[in-house]
């Protein structure tokens, strides 16, 4: 049985892969992280007896391969606890942080119980670290942007000069969306001016800074078990999308077309994914105006519908086939 782990949020890729699993008449079950909190999944992990993670509603022995597409939104459970609580903001934020950690520990227990099964991507490799990723990318011979993590204005100003006065900042950890009733916010990539930096305090929250790389176009590459499916995004034609193509222009969407990564670069990506122990992921790269390929990051759980559809790659079908093959081997 193929086990699909996903969160309760609508995920169109999960729907499409499930359609293909139905088409191939594969046996699969979809569970949500929320099932462990709504009562539809019971957990029992007892150390004095068999030391076995038990989920009575789900026979883990039957699981033959796993596809992970997200699991839990911490905010749901944090909200349950904090809604009626009268306390200071600092207490609330400490509490939220602790609840998130406890949720994470529990999720890890569950993942550990699945550790011997084929997984897409490897559950232990999910929480990637940007600095670790960049270090390893450099090791396999990929070009990376000049990168600095600092809390110090002086260091940042020196770095600003070293990067020819073109600097971006982005989240050190993963991106996330915040939804309000009428709009959504998210962590995006920002271009920093000297004026921005001069307005910083001498000591600020430790943050990630990178030299801005002039693009000819961006690349989004879906990696699946040694195969690369690349797409070029012509974000430079449009001022709105130059720094971050996720500032979508809905009127005139960026041109997104199939791309054939040169063999040498493709090999480096494969080497990196092996080094990161990732069987799948979405890779962001830049092709510069002077014909260099610059690696930005890998997202093990990146959306691939955005690559699959415009390039007609049928990635949902390929993911379904991969899960079925893993079951048979």
């Amino acid at each position, binding site marked *: 049985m193929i086990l699909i782990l996903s969160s309760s949020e609508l995920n169109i890729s999960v729907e*499409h892969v499930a*359609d*293909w699993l*139905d*088409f191939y008449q594969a046996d699969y079950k979809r569970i949500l992280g929320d099932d462990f909190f709504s009562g539809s999944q019971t957990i029992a992990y007892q150390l004095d007896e068999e030391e076995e993670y038990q989920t009575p509603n789900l026979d883990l022995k039957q699981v033959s391969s796993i596809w992970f597409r997200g699991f839990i939104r911490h905010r749901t459970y944090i909200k349950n606890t904090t809604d009626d609580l009268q306390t200071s903001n600092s207490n609330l934020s400490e509490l939220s942080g602790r609840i998130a950690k406890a949720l994470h520990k529990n999720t890890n227990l569950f993942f550990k119980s699945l550790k011997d099964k084929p997984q897409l991507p490897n559950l232990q490799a999910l929480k990637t670290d940007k600095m670790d990723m960049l270090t390893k990318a450099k090791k396999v011979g990929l070009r990376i942007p000049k990168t600095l993590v600092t809390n110090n204005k002086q260091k940042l100003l020196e770095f600003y000069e070293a990067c020819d006065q073109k600097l971006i900042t982005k989240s050190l950890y993963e991106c996330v969306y915040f939804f309000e009733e009428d709009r959504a916010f998210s962590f995006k990539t920002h271009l920093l001016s000297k004026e921005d930096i001069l307005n910083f305090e001498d000591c600020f929250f430790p943050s990630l800074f990178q030299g801005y790389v002039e693009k000819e176009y961006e690349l989004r590459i879906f990696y699946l078990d040694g195969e690369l499916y690349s797409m*070029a995004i*012509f974000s430079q*034609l449009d001022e709105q999308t130059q720094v971050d193509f996720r500032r979508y222009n809905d009127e*005139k*969407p960026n*041109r*997104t*077309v*199939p*791309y*054939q*990564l*040169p063999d040498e670069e493709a090999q480096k990506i494969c080497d990196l994914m092996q080094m990161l122990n990732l069987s799948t992921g979405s890779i962001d790269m830049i092709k510069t105006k002077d*014909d260099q390929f610059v690696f930005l990051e890998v997202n093990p759980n990146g959306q691939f519908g955005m690559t699959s*559809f*415009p*390039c*007609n*790659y*049928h990635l949902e*079908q390929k993911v379904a086939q991969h899960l079925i093959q893993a079951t048979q081997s």
Partner: protein
Amino acid sequence: MPKKVFKLYASCVPVLGAKRATICDLQRGKVYVIPQSLYHLLMDYSDKNYEELAEMFANDKSILDKYFNFLLSNELGFWTHEAQNFPPIDFTFQEPEIIQTAILEIDDLDTDIFQKIIASLIRLKCKFVELRAYHSCPTSKIEFILNLTKDSPIRNLIIYTQFTNIEEVSALSKIIGQHPRAGSTVIHSCPSDLKTDFLRNDKMSFSQEAISSSTHCGNISPDYFINDIRVFSESLHHNSCLNRKISVDNKGNIKNCPSLPDSYGNIQETSLEDALAQKDFKKLWNIKKDEIEKCKDCEFRHICSDCRAYVEDPKNLYSKPLKCGYDPYTNQWQDWTQNPLKQKAIEYYNLSPSSQTATNKT
């Protein structure tokens, strides 16, 4: 470094017609009509850089510049020295559902039979359902069908029903407003003085035209062009109307399309799955535009719909759709109902001229 050549974005696909050509922008959903000379420039000289082209077409340099201006300003292509890294889109057509669209004529069928029909459609992974009521249909019947599709793979239901009175329309508007799977709803045969401002429902539209039978279907018009990768690739490999379609007509006959004569059993005795398994059910599914007379010479062929139920020559499986007023050899759109060459077929199908409206573009 290799020379810079001009490359169309892979989603901008040139299609050659008898007299002119198009570039179908499948990403942005636009179609550009171009002269054949530009088509050949793009196809036959794709390995030449600008200087070479300027030399070859020295006498027509202003046209050459006009062409590239047009292509660049509409963002249809770009100059690149790594053309080999930009492969074309592979237009393989693959979808997981067995049936994509079902058309159900609901006037004369008993409400109960829809349990059987919808259960089959769910097993067939059907995504879209069209409910057609040529006469006035009780809102409760439509509601019953909509409720059967809850939590099913059916993503969208389109509804056609006849106008009865304001109360019924309000009731229906409320129901489709609450039902996430209910899509665009057309109320036909509306009185000319009908005020609809009180209905705040984006899904609903009103038409004075009567849709009184399946003979109203099959119109070919630029209004129905769909310019995207799925439709384009399906059109390259299959029929752009009948592929993965199933219907139940008012008598319960299971057909590929209600307008077609062949029935593969009656829903009272036969399941949709059994009908679909019959040898000939899919016989029209693979008739491609590239094989259809006249359509195969049309520059719009891969973004256009098709019709096999009403064709110019009823005895020819590969005849052009009757209800198309476009002539790819003259590039003129005309009212198909007035075309003298079509009168025989119009008579053959018993299409009364007053009930047929041609959608014309000149």
